[in-house]
C-alpha cells in the first residue's frame, strides 16, 4: 500500500483534487450548481501551474462535451463535470461520446431536473442518461468520489472497454459536505493510471491507432446506416459486458495501492437478511445506520448499495438477493407514467426469470433534495417486514417522505 495523506475535502474538491493528480490534457467545463466547485478548484490548479491541462472555459455544456469529444478523439485525456440541466444540454453529445468509444471521464453532481427549478439532489439527471452508453458509478462519500475519479480513467480506457465514465456524486450531500479523504501521492496516481492506451483499428487507409493522427488518418463518425449501424451498437453491448469484468479487476489493483476496494455492489448484513433495501449514492449511508439500529432490535434487515448502475450487475444481484423475501428499492428518480423508478424496473426485470424471487417494492424518495432522515428509512423497513408477514405487497409503488 502506498503512503497517503488525510485531507479535508468536500465531494467536489475531492473530484478536483483527483483530476489534478491525473493531470488530463483537456478539461472543458461550464459552471452549474452544485458542480461548480470542481471547475473552480481545477481552474486554480491551472492558474497556479500545478497541472499541464488545457482548461477550456466553454460557453455551454453542449460545447463542453463536444470539446471533450474532439480532444479525446485526438488522443487526449479529457474531463468535464456537470449536473442536471447541464447534463440535459449535453444529451446529444453523451450518446456521441459513447458511440465513438471515447473514454472521457465526467463528474456529475446529481441534481434535480427543472421544472420547477431546484438545485438540490436527486438522480433524475443521470438516470435520464442511463441509456446513453456511459458507464455510471454512484458514490457514497467524498472518499469514494476521489477514488472513483482516479479509477474511472483505467476503467474507460481499458482496451476491452473504451467507453466514457460518469462519476456520480450527490449534489450538496456530497458535493458541498466536507469529509476526511485519504489521498494518494501524485506519483502513486500517475503510476496507477499510466498513459492512455489506444486500440488498433483497420481504417480505410490501413491499420491505425484509434485516434486522429495526421500520419495515420482515420475517419471518425461517418454516416453509418442500416448495413453497419446495428453491428456497431453490438460492439457497445459487448463493451459494457466486458466493463463488468474489468471494473472489479481494476478495483482490486487500486485496492493494492489504496487499501480501499469498492466492487460493483456493497451488501451489508445480507447473510441472513429477510428484507433488504437497495439503492444508490449517499442515502445508503443513512440506510446502513438504520440497519444497525434495527438489527439491535433483532430485526433481520439488510441493505445493498449499488455502486455500478451501468453496466448493470445482473448476476451478482440475482445471487445476492435470491434468498431475501422482500426487497425495497430506493429510487431517487421517477419515470413518469412508468410502473416505477428506473432501478425498480431493472431489478424486477432481472428477477422475472428466477424461480426464487423476492417481492419487490419501489420507494421513490428524496426528489428535489427532500431530506430522507433515518425515521423514513425505518418506516420503509417496517413496511417491508409487514409485506413479508402478509406475503404480498398491496402497493408496489410507494412515495417516501412526500405530503399526499
Amino acid at each position, binding site marked *: 500500500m502506498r503512503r497517503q495523506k488525510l485531507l479535508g475535502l468536500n465531494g467536489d474538491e475531492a473530484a478536483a483534487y483527483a483530476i489534478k493528480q491525473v493531470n488530463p490534457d*483537456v478539461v472543458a467545463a461550464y459552471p452549474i450548481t452544485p458542480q461548480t466547485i470542481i471547475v473552480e478548484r481545477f481552474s486554480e490548479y491551472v492558474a497556479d501551474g500545478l497541472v499541464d491541462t488545457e482548461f477550456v472555459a466553454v460557453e455551454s455544456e453542449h460545447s463542453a462535451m463536444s470539446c471533450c469529444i474532439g480532444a479525446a478523439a485526438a*488522443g487526449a485525456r479529457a474531463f468535464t463535470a456537470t449536473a442536471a440541466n447541464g447534463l440535459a444540454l449535453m444529451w446529444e453529445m453523451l450518446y*456521441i461520446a459513447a458511440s465513438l468509444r471515447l473514454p472521457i471521464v465526467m463528474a456529475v453532481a446529481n441534481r434535480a431536473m427543472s421544472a420547477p427549478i431546484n438545485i438540490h439532489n436527486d438522480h433524475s439527471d443521470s438516470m435520464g442518461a442511463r441509456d446513453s452508453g456511459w458507464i455510471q458509478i454512484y458514490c457514497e462519500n467524498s472518499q469514494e468520489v476521489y477514488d472513483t475519479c482516479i479509477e474511472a480513467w483505467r476503467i474507460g480506457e481499458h482496451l476491452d472497454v473504451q467507453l466514457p465514465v460518469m462519476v456520480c456524486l450527490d449534489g450538496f450531500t456530497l458535493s458541498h459536505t466536507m469529509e476526511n479523504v485519504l489521498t494518494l501521492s501524485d506519483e502513486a496516481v500517475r503510476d496507477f493510471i499510466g498513459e492512455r492506451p489506444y486500440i488498433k483499428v483497420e481504417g480505410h487507409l490501413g491499420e491505425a491507432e484509434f485516434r486522429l493522427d495526421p500520419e*495515420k488518418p482515420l475517419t471518425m463518425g*461517418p454516416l453509418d446506416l442500416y448495413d453497419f449501424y446495428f453491428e456497431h451498437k453490438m460492439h457497445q453491448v459487448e463493451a459494457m459486458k466486458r466493463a463488468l469484468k474489468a471494473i472489479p479487476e481494476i478495483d482490486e489493483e487500486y485496492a493494492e495501492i489504496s487499501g480501499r476496494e469498492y466492487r460493483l455492489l456493497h451488501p451489508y448484513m445480507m447473510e441472513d437478511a429477510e428484507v433488504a433495501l437497495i439503492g444508490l449514492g449517499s442515502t445508503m449511508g443513512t440506510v446502513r445506520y438504520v440497519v444497525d439500529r434495527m438489527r439491535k432490535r433483532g430485526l433481520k434487515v439488510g441493505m445493498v448499495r449499488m455502486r455500478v448502475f451501468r453496466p448493470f450487475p445482473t448476476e451478482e444481484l440475482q445471487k445476492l438477493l435470491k434468498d431475501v423475501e422482500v426487497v425495497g428499492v430506493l429510487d431517487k428518480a421517477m419515470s413518469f407514467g412508468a410502473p416505477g423508478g428506473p432501478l425498480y424496473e431493472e431489478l424486477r426485470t432481472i428477477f422475472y426469470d428466477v424461480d426464487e424471487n423476492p417481492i419487490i417494492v419501489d420507494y421513490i424518495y428524496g426528489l428535489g433534495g427532500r431530506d430522507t432522515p433515518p425515521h423514513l428509512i425505518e418506516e420503509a423497513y417496517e413496511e417491508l417486514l409487514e409485506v413479508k408477514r402478509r406475503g404480498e405487497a398491496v402497493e408496489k409503488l410507494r412515495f417516501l417522505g412526500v405530503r399526499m
Partner: protein
Amino acid sequence: MSKAITLKEAVKKPDLLASGHRLCAGCAEPIIARLVLKASRGAIIATTATGCLEVATTIFPYSAWRIPWIHTAFENAAATASGIEAAWRAMRRKGRGPLAKYETLDVVAFAGDGGTYDIGLQALSGALERGHDFTYVLLDNEAYMNTGIQRSGGTPYCAWTTTSPAGTVIPGKREWKKPIDEIVIAHEIPYTATVSPAYPLDLMQKARAAFETEGPAFIHAISPCCRGWRFPPNKTIEVARLAVETCFFPLYECRVEDGRPIYKLSPPSLAIAKRPERKKPVEEYLKIQGRFRHLFRPERRGDLIERIQRWVDRRWEMLLEKAGL
C-alpha cells in the same frame, strides 16, 4: 506576411478529399473543400458539421478523406475543433502524447450555413471568443440542403426554399441574409475572408493565410447548390462568379490589427471598386437561378428586384467605406 501559395505548389499537392464521394454533380462544396485543403501546411485534422459534405463524403466503411477527420454533430463544429486544438496544445506543452511532435497543426472545421448562421452560432461565437488556433470554413449554400432545401439565416431575401416557398401571397423568404461576416469580425478575431470557388487561387491564398494565422480564422465561401438554387450543374462556377461580379457576394479579407479591423478588397472585387461600371446588375445573378424565378415569372417583380439591388448597393458601399475606398 505568410508565404502565399502558388498554383504550382497547389497542382503538385495531391487532393486530400478524394473523388468518388456522393456529393451531387455540380456541387461547389467539394471544390471549395479541396482548394482549402490544398493550402494546408502539413499536419492537419478536420472536423465537419452534419450536412451534405459529411453525409456524402463518408458512409461506413468508405471515406473520401485522406486526412484525419471527425464528425460529431450539427451545431458544434467549432467546439469539436476547440477540443482538437486544446489536445494538441496540451500535448505540445507536456512534450508528451501523440500530437506533441507537430510544431504546427492545421485544425479546420467545415460547416454549412445552417451549422453556422443558426444552430452552430453559439459554439462558433464561444470558440472565436476563446481564441482557439483553428480555421472555420463556412460552406454557404444558403439553405438546409441536406434535409431538402429549407430556409436558414443565410438564405437571401425572396429566395424560394421548401420552408419559404414562393406563394401567391408571399414571394419566398421574407428576411434578409444575416450579416455573418460582420458578426464574426465583431469578435475581433485576427483573420476573416470571403471566397468564391470561381477564384481558386484567391481561395487557396486566403485558406493559407487562415492556416498561418495564430488564433481563429474564418473563411466564408459562397457555395452554389444546383439542386437548391435551381440551375444546371454545369453553371456552378458561373453562378459563383456572378455572385462576385454583381457584388452580391464581394471578396475581401479583414485582419484585426491592434484591435482595429483592416478591410482589404480582393482583386476581383477591387477591380469593380476601381471601375464601378464593371459592377453587373444583381438581376443577372437572380435570373439564372430558379429559386428566384417568381421574380420574373409570371410577371417581372421589378419592385422586389429593385429592393434586392438596393440591399446589394448599400452593403457594397458600406464595404467600400470600411476598406477606405
